[in-house]
C-alpha cells in the first residue's frame, strides 16, 4: 500500500512539474494570441491548484498513517512494559508486604525492649534500695550475731530495772495502804525508817571523812619523820608505849640504837631517861658528861653524832 501511495505521489508530482514548466514558453504566444488563450490559462491554473491540493492531502494522509503506526507501536511497547511492570510489582508487593510486617515486628520488639529496659531499671533501683535497707536473699545468705551483744544486755538491764521499779512501787503501795488503815503507827514507822536512813547516811559520810583524815595523817607523819631524820640525823621509832628508839644515820651497825623512856611522876614531868642498850654501854664517858653533869639530851645526842661521824670519816 505504501509503495502504491508513493507512486501516486510521484505521478502527481511529475505531472505537476511538467505542467508548471510548460507555460514558460507560451507566455509570449499568449501575448500574441490574446484573450482566447487567457481562458485556457485560467483552466490550467485551476487544475494545478487542484493537483496541489491533492498532493497535500495525500501527503497529510501518509503522515497521519505514519504517526498512527508509531503510536500503535509505542502503545504496544507501553502495554508490554505495563504488563511486565504489573507482574513485577505483584512480586514486589509481596516482598513489600513481608518487609512492612518485619518492620512492624522490629518496631514492636524495640518498644518491648525499651519497656523491659525501663522495668529492669526500676527493678534494679528497687533492688539497690532493698540492699541499702539491709534486705537479703535467704537462699544465699544468713544473718548472725553474737548471742551476748550490747543491745541484748541493755534490754535485759532495762527489764531488770523495770522489775525493780515495779517491786518498789508495790512496796510503796503497801505502805500507803497500811498508813491509810493504821494512821499514826504507820506514820511513825515510816519516820523511823527515814531517820534510820538519814543516820546511816551520816555515818557513812563521817566514816568516809575519817578515812580521808587517816590517809592525810599517814602522809604527814611520814613526811615529819623523814624531815627529822634528815635534819637531826636520828630516826625515831616508837617501840612500845612511852618508849622511843633513836638510830643514828651514822650508826656502824643496824642494831646500834639508843632507847629513851618517858618518865611520869612528881618533879619529872615528862622528862626522858636513857635506857641501857648494848650500844649505850659503849658510851660511858659521854653519858657521864652530857647527861649526868650537863643534863642535856640534845648535847649528848650531838656528841654521839659527832663521834660516829668522825669514826666514819677517819680513813
Amino acid at each position: 500500500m505504501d509503495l502504491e501511495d508513493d507512486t501516486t505521489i510521484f505521478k502527481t508530482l511529475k505531472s505537476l512539474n511538467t505542467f508548471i514548466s510548460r507555460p514558460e514558453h507560451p507566455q509570449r504566444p499568449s501575448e500574441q494570441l490574446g484573450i482566447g488563450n487567457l481562458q485556457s490559462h485560467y483552466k490550467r491554473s485551476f487544475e494545478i491548484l487542484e493537483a496541489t491540493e491533492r498532493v497535500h492531502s495525500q501527503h497529510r494522509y501518509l503522515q497521519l498513517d505514519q504517526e498512527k503506526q508509531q503510536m500503535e507501536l509505542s502503545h504496544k511497547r507501553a502495554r508490554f512494559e505495563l504488563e511486565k511492570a504489573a507482574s513485577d510489582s505483584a512480586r514486589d508487593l509481596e516482598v513489600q508486604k513481608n518487609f512492612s510486617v518485619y518492620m512492624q515486628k522490629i518496631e514492636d520488639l524495640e518498644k518491648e525492649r525499651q519497656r523491659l529496659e525501663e522495668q529492669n531499671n526500676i527493678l534494679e533501683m528497687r533492688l539497690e534500695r532493698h540492699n541499702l535497707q539491709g534486705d537479703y536473699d535467704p537462699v544465699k545468705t544468713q544473718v548472725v550475731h553474737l548471742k551476748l551483744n550490747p543491745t541484748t544486755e541493755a534490754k535485759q538491764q532495762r527489764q531488770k530495772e523495770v522489775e525493780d521499779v515495779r517491786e518498789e512501787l508495790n512496796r510503796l503501795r503497801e505502805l500507803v495502804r497500811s498508813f491509810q488503815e493504821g494512821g499514826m503507827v504507820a506514820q511513825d514507822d515510816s519516820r523511823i525508817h527515814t531517820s534510820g536512813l538519814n543516820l546511816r547516811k551520816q555515818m557513812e559520810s563521817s566514816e568516809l571523812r575519817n578515812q580521808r583524815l587517816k590517809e592525810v595523817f599517814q602522809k604527814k607523819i611520814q613526811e615529819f619523820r623523814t624531815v627529822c631524820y634528815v635534819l637531826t640525823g636520828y630516826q625515831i621509832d616508837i617501840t612500845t608505849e612511852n618508849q622511843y628508839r633513836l638510830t643514828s644515820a651514822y650508826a656502824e651497825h643496824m642494831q646500834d640504837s639508843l632507847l629513851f623512856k618517858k618518865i611520869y611522876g612528881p618533879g619529872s614531868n615528862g622528862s626522858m631517861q636513857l635506857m641501857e642498850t648494848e650500844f649505850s654501854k659503849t658510851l660511858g664517858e659521854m653519858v657521864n658528861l652530857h647527861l649526868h653533869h650537863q643534863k642535856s639530851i640534845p648535847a649528848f645526842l650531838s656528841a654521839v653524832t659527832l663521834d660516829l661521824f668522825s669514826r666514819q670519816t677517819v680513813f
Partner: protein
Amino acid sequence: MTSTLKGVTLKGSAELVADFFSFGINSILYQRGIYPPETFTKASHYDMSLHITTDAKLKNYLTNVVSQLKEWLFECTVQKLVLVITCLETNEVLERWQFDIECDKSAKESSAPREKSLKTIQDEIRSVIRQITATVTFLPLLETPCAFDLLVYTDKDLVVPEKWEESGPQIIDQSEEVRLRSFTTSIHKVDSMVAYKRTNSV
C-alpha cells in the same frame, strides 16, 4: 601486718579490713554518742586521730566480733557487716551502718599478692572514716538511750559458731539511705552506707 610494699595477700587483706571495722565501729560509737565520750581515748592510726573505747566490756565484745570476722574475711564467706542502733525505749531500729563486702574468691586459689600499695589502701580507708565522721552533720540526733549490735551477713552454708546465733536483718521502718565512699584492697571491696529512720519533723 602481713601486707608489705610488695602487695596484698588474702591474709593481709583480711587483717586490713578487720582493722578498718574495728576503728570504724569505734568512731561511729563515739560520734553517735552510744557510749559517753569520757570512756574513749585518742589513738593515732591511718595518719589521723581516732577515738578508741576504754570500756573493758565493750572492748572485749568488739575483739570477739572482729577476730571472728577476720576469720570469715579470710575464708571469703562474709557478705556484710551491719552496726544496728536501737532505741531502748521503743525497741525501734533508728540507724543502720552497713558495710557490703565483696570478696574476690579467686584469691583463695592463687596466693600471689595483688599489686596495690598499703599507702593507697590506707588513703582510701581514711576517706571513708572521714566521711563517717562528717555524717554527724546530717544524721538525726539520737535523743533517747540507745544500744548497738553488730550483725554479720554470711554465706548460707556457713556453720554458725557456738557463741553466735541467727538474727533478723533489723531493717528500719521508713528509712532514708545514704551511700558513702568505698575502698578496696583489691581482694576485699567494702562499700559503706548508712540508713536512718525518717523523721516527720521536716
